[in-house]
């Protein structure tokens, strides 16, 4: 995986912090997401994921860590595309799993996580933050 670069993006008010580590195989996205143009923000990440998943072997375990207190509808569309790519890799036999940390007082966040989970087959754990 030497050819695939790390991604480190600091969070802003309307975009999440992104940490994609292709060596430790941890892909983390944390924070609110409602940028002016969500697709412009997520498109490079979706491309990166395509390349990363193409090189991923069946022996490697990948952990996806999500913590998304609020995402607007256009960001939700981008996350749907992101998660569908991961689900596709899982169906091909790759070891991919998602862990979503949420604030127990935020029902919308839990609902959002559950609705993503409903349509995916990959392991998808939804954990209250206090349980960390």
């Amino acid at each position: 995986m030497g050819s695939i670069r790390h991604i480190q993006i600091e969070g802003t008010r309307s975009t999440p912090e992104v940490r994609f580590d292709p060596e430790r195989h941890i892909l983390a996205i944390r924070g609110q997401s409602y940028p002016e143009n969500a697709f412009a923000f997520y498109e490079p990440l979706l491309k990166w994921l395509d390349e990363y998943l193409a090189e991923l072997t069946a022996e490697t375990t990948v952990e996806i860590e999500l913590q998304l207190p609020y995402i607007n509808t256009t960001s939700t569309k981008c996350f749907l595309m992101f998660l569908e790519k991961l689900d596709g890799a899982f169906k091909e036999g790759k070891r991919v799993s998602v862990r979503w940390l949420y604030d127990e007082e935020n029902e919308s966040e839990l609902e959002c996580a559950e609705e993503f989970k409903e349509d995916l087959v990959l392991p998808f754990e939804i954990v209250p933050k206090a349980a960390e």
Partner: protein
Amino acid sequence: MIDKNLLDVQTLLRRNGILISFSGRLSQQLIEEYGEAVKTYLESENRPKNEIFHIFSIFIELTQNIKNYGTAKTDSPFYDKIVQSSIITIGKDGQGSYICAGNLVEGPDLEVLTARIDELSGLNKDELKTLYKDRLKRSEPEFGAGVGLIDMARKSSHALQYSVTPAEGNLSFFTLKAVV
């Protein structure tokens, strides 16, 4: 006279239970500033967290919809009027906390918009969820998900309400109200 006018504005805001209002041209930066301010304000009032999340969420979808509509109208002869026309309010009335926003909309767009809202008004929570997921999957990310209205309807405790007031030319002033 200015102080008298300001007092009138305040009286009008109070009479309508309006806590926060913004009128004028929206930008992403303003949406972020206002969004955070709204959240902080509601937190200081010790509102339930879910209510705050829903208000914040509807506020963002509504303001981004209005701003995107303006951006899409760059070629319209009414462009300047449209982008200057937005107004957003957050308040409280007998039904609960509400977000009410208005802007000028061109005739053909108005028909599409009102048809979309009418389509949602008869649906229950489960039907809204099914429609939301279906539209989300079929939408094109480049053009926005186009599912903002369904999302707002899902986060509202009552059906979305709207009004239309004819303005000059083929323009109408359109308002949308969501009660949390």
